[in-house]
């Protein structure tokens, strides 16, 4: 499991290597937008992440009411895959380091 991570980290700058040493996680954030339907956002969460209906609805309402929700946590590569997938669905997603 660590093989892929270390291989990737070696190619990055030392700051990232230091960060990775503390296994600091990354998160995928979905942001509120005026276009996407609530039903669609919830449907995407269920279909893509496999969330149960209740969890998908909870996260969708977080996006709607708070303007954003963390929908996934993990390593950077994995979060980038999620963000790319969300962009494929037309959702407004970004990746950032998790708050420590």
């Amino acid at each position, binding site marked *: 499991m660590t093989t892929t991570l270390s291989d990737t980290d070696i190619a990055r700058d030392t700051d990232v290597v230091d960060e990775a040493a503390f296994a600091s996680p990354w998160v995928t954030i979905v*942001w*509120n*937008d*005026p*276009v*996407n*339907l609530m*039903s*669609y956002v919830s*449907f995407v969460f269920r*279909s893509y992440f496999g969330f149960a209906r209740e969890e998908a609805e909870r996260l969708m309402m977080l996006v709607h009411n708070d*303007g954003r929700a963390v929908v996934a946590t993990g390593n950077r590569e994995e979060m*980038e895959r999620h*963000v*790319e997938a969300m*962009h*494929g*669905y*037309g959702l*407004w*997603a*970004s*990746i*950032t380091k998790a708050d420590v």
Partner: protein
Amino acid sequence: MTAFGVTDAGDVLARFDAAETRILLSLSGQLAEMLADVAEPSAGLDPAIGRLFPDAYREDPDASAEFSRFTRTDLAAAKVAAASTVQRSLASTSASDDDPSPSSVAGAGAVPSSSDAEFVLDTEAGWSWLRHLTDLRLTIAARLGVVDDPNAFDEEPDPAQTSDDDLLARGLFDWLGYVQELLIAALEEGAAVRAAGNGGTGTASPPV
């Protein structure tokens, strides 16, 4: 009128009248054209492109640019593929009478009016439709100057203070949202039908 039904197999049966079909084909074609130019430097200035391919790292332009370099081509290709799926669906039963060539896609049967569109969507095609309807709505919204104002569409536009073009665009935006809402409900109903069929309980009563 747009309508969606569900087949016994749990697929979605979609129907659009001639005018709706023409509008969808036109919008879809325009979006596909826009996506073809996505690699052009000028595309970076287009707010619609900016919204379809948002920054992956909000506080790190370099990381965003790198992400974009690695993903944009595939993402654009997927969006174009969804557009093609939608256009194929609409063309499958909308060939006009003066086109004698046999339909390239096996139709479910003759439709009453030569230019209405009626077709079956499985789950995968349904998702292509949902994605494409989303891309169309995001693009129209960007054309209306709306990207991130969460309340931008809360109220009806004031006809006295809105150009005809913007009123038309807003009408299309709302209609596409209506179509998407109906399609989501139909796909959910189809999934319930399939679940009932596979589960054998037969008790699942799909919502109307």
